[in-house]
């Protein structure tokens, strides 16, 4: 039996929505209270209460109703599946099909590829405004509700075959982390404003989605691309105090504001998803005046975050030899083990039951009666602190998204003129760009490539650089020699 009180967690969550008088959502002049969000949730529950333990997709832009829908879904004992409407329709449809969605709540007409799936669909704005209000009480009093191993949400990661992998999370899987985060982070009850600059399908969103209501904080979404790319004015105008994001956001801020931004009201800076360089930590302490800075490490498959480090200004000197902020130490409930290659293995209550469809089952290993997940990350220890040294496979991180390069390559091979393609990353200006080397009968321009891929892959996965070769370099075992390929490209570019 799990030590996590799942039902108690949801009872408290529901109470916050029912009783808090604070603002729940702020965006410019738009403000909604917890009471107003709860009212929208009960209206959505009119439809949701007719089902239990079903998978419900939210296919919508960031808006007040979308937040209400997420909470209504989990509080009605259903499973939330975020699908970003900006994704290519074919990929969104593949995700909906893989997740066996029962209902789609949407703010727009569905694209043809999703209509073809024949899934029941309802208008999110209409339901949130005009639906018949139904209380969550019956569901919460039912002893069969909120069982520890029932699914709470499903997210997707890039897969090596060209199809995204579905990662189901049970209630226990993510609640263990949320409870830890609420213990560790110095939130001020009723005073925090949580920035939301990331896709709901990126599990960094779980941090603010589920911490904010417990501390009666407000959500402040970045609704335009400009706000998400460079959110300084959004932070100021909405009074953001908690920023959960990836370090490349700090890099962008520093690029424009080298002298710093001491006038922003940040209290908590929660960094994750990418290596956190010490020069960026130094900037955050000295030029952004952030009161509390944390570095977290985790994977979608292992319940959001598994390690954490509370940063101090002295880290910049102390860990200079590593160049990066440590990922720190394991959070409660997480077991760690290392292979001979320093690959981090994780165990504990936060491990997903496994990918949808049973794919890549080899990543989950039973050792001496304990179930472990092979993270694919190389992790080393220094002075009792752990450091992530990058991937041991072909996955890469682009703006915090874990991308399987073979996913892109599988789609590139379908383009006319490309017989074989291999992707790698090119570093420049503190950013990373995806390059694809290919062999084939004809020249393919990045523009044509992007146009072909736009119905199949998210835009951040489209290669920015295409490089035609007569043949790809091979290693002794006859496989494509990726390190050599990258070196050849750098030589071509005149890089050191």
């Amino acid at each position, binding site marked *: 039996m799990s030590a996590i009180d799942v039902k108690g967690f949801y009872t408290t969550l529901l109470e916050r929505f029912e009783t808090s008088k604070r603002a729940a959502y702020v965006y410019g002049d738009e403000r909604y209270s917890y009471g107003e969000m709860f009212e929208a949730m009960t209206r959505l529950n009119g439809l949701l209460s007719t089902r239990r333990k079903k998978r419900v997709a939210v296919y919508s832009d960031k808006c007040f109703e979308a937040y209400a829908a997420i909470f209504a879904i989990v509080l009605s004992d259903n499973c939330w599946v975020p699908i970003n409407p900006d994704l290519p329709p074919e990929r969104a449809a593949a995700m909906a099909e893989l997740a066996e969605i029962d209902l789609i709540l949407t703010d727009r007409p569905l694209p043809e590829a999703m209509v073809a799936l024949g899934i029941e669909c309802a208008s999110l704005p209409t339901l949130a405004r005009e639906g018949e209000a139904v209380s969550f009480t019956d569901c919460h009093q039912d002893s069969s509700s909120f069982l520890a191993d029932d699914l709470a949400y499903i997210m997707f990661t890039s897969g090596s075959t060209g199809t995204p992998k579905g990662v189901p999370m049970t209630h226990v899987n993510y609640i263990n982390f949320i409870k830890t985060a609420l213990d560790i982070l110095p939130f001020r009850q009723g005073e925090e404003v949580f920035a939301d600059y990331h896709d709901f399908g990126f599990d960094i969103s779980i941090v603010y989605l589920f911490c904010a209501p417990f501390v009666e904080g407000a959500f402040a979404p970045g609704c*335009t*691309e*400009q706000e998400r*790319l*460079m959110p300084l004015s959004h932070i100021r105008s909405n009074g953001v105090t908690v920023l959960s994001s990836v370090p490349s956001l700090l890099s*962008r801020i520093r*690029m*424009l504001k080298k002298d710093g931004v001491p006038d922003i009201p940040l209290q908590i800076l929660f960094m994750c998803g990418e290596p956190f360089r010490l020069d960026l930590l130094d900037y955050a302490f000295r030029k952004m005046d952030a009161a509390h800075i944390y570095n977290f490490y985790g994977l979608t498959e292992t319940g959001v975050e598994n390690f954490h480090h509370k940063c101090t200004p002295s880290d910049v000197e102390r860990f200079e030899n590593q160049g990066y902020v440590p990922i720190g130490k394991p959070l409660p409930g997480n077991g760690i083990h290392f292979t001979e290659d320093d690959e981090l293995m994780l165990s504990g209550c936060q491990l997903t039951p496994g990918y949808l469809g049973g794919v890549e089952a080899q990543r989950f290993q039973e050792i001496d009666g304990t179930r472990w997940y092979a993270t694919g990350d190389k992790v080393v220890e220094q002075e009792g602190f752990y450091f992530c040294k990058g991937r041991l496979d072909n996955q890469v991180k682009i703006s915090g998204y874990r991308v399987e390069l073979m996913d892109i390559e599988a789609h590139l091979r379908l383009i006319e003129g490309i017989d074989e393609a291999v992707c790698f990353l*090119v570093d*420049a*200006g*503190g*950013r990373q*760009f995806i*390059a694809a080397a290919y062999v084939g009968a004809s020249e393919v321009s990045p*523009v044509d490539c*992007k*146009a072909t891929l736009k119905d199949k892959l998210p835009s951040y996965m489209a290669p*920015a*650089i295409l*490089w035609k070769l007569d043949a790809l370099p091979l290693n002794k075992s006859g496989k494509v020699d990726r390190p050599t390929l990258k070196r050849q490209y750098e030589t071509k*570019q*005149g890089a050191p």
Partner: protein
Amino acid sequence: MTRDDALAVVFEALERVNTDLPPDLHLIKSIETELLGENAAIDSLGLFILLSAIEEQLAEKFGITGVLGDDDISATESPLRSVGTLVDHIIEASG
């Protein structure tokens, strides 16, 4: 502000942006260079950095501010479609 002034500001900003791009992605200093849409030679973040560099130079050299501030970088009918339309917009907006 003359067209040559505006063009010089934009070209200098392009040079600055190029220092942060891999050589294969360097932007061509031409009024034909497309900045928005399917054939854009730059991504959203790059465009944002370019506009910031232009704003900075307009303020430094000509004391002009707020010329580009409210434009939505994702709008398809934006004056930011190409280097040429951007130069026209700067001349018009700076009076």
